[in-house]
């Protein structure tokens, strides 16, 4: 109690010079007093800031609900991937809406790529893949590209990763090559791969400023595609601008 009182006096600037000097001298020698001082400083900080702290917590809570809304487990099976892809389509819409107010070009507004979440595959490639994943999700496509290329060469049937390879190329300005990939997957029998590829095909035209072809692809997106809504929205904006 006595220590609490002295520390409070010190912190609220009510000590005179002599008293303050003596107190500071004592602090150097008395570890537990110093520790109590640190705690009382934190208590003051809490009192001054707890409203802001609570407000921040609620705000982060809301943002969290928005950015982590999908329910998904580990991405392992094709069935798992399917759910994942549907969730991605929904997320893309949310992300894009969030972008609208802020971004300059239409391409940048709409090219909000879902994160690359590769499967825990064979351990030999896991490190490389996680590097590619990190680079991709950071927007470092230059770094992600060669790893994705190598992976796709070794796993020519992994169509999902192929789409991501196409996105990396598109982001790096290699749109014709990207389009080749997207076009080849646009006839895939797996609907989630097909929809994802077609959507990115549209984006690749948008990136090149080819609005006519972009609109054409967008109009071909059927109502049962997860990208239908966003495609319609983009079409409207293309027509309006």
């Amino acid at each position: 109690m006595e220590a609490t009182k002295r520390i409070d006096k010190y912190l609220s600037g009510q000590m005179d010079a002599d008293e303050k000097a003596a107190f500071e001298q004592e602090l150097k020698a008395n570890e537990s007093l110093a520790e109590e001082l640190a705690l009382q400083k934190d208590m003051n900080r809490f009192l001054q800031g707890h409203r802001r702290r609570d407000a921040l917590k609620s705000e982060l809570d809301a943002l969290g609900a928005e950015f982590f809304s999908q329910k998904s487990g580990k991405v392992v099976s094709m069935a798992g991937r399917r759910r994942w892809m549907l969730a991605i389509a929904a997320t893309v819409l949310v992300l894009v809406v969030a972008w609208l107010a802020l971004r300059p070009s239409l391409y940048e507004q709409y090219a909000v790529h879902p994160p690359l979440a590769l499967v825990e595959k064979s351990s030999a490639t896991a490190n490389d893949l996680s590097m590619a994943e990190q680079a991709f999700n950071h927007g470092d496509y230059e770094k992600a590209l060669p790893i994705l290329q190598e992976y796709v060469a070794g796993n020519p049937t992994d169509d999902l990763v192929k789409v991501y390879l196409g996105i990396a190329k598109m982001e790096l300005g290699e749109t014709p090559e990207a389009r080749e990939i997207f076009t080849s997957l646009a006839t895939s029998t797996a609907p989630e791969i097909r929809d994802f590829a077609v959507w990115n095909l549209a984006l690749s035209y948008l990136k090149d400023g080819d609005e006519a072809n972009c609109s054409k692809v967008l109009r071909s997106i059927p109502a049962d595609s997860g990208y239908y809504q966003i495609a319609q929205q983009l079409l409207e904006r293309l027509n309006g601008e």
Partner: protein
Amino acid sequence: MNWQSDETYLKALCGGNSGVLREIYRRFAPQLRSWVLRNNGDEDDAKDLMQDALMAIYDRYCGKDFQFTGNFGGLLMVIAKRMWFDQLSKKKRRQSIRKEELYGQLEEEPELEAAESAMLEKQRMDTLARVFDLLSDQCRQLLTLFTEGKKDPDKIAAQLGIPSANAVYQAKHRCLARWKKLFYQHHKNDS
């Protein structure tokens, strides 16, 4: 893409700026999600980790004299990973993996030390917040009035029905001492 600077992120966290906070999520949430999903977690875990890691940065750097010099995204990720490993080893979901192996992954991270300090600071502030609620109504009001600039003890005395200014100071010190005592009791139990 033109992202804001690390300094802007910290300012938004400390002072509030919804647009920038949103950008923090847009920029780092995918990365964190993908890591958590690959490490035995789910979407909810990732969401909680993101929030807790940001709160830890807030508690460590906001309203303090510490200079933030590191990489915001790096620090955020290391805090989240470190927190997740703590949870995993508590839940023993990965009995097959030894603790050292788990934490060893983080040893090389330049932000590890800052991350651990931030986590400790958050635990401290969480405990302070929790035990503050255990104080009497009068204590909470009194301490709040003192920090809200109404430092005139006579006015506080009148408002709270305390007989004198002197008694207000006595009550303040009693409340602070009680709060400290509760903190020490609970903080030991937590860690």
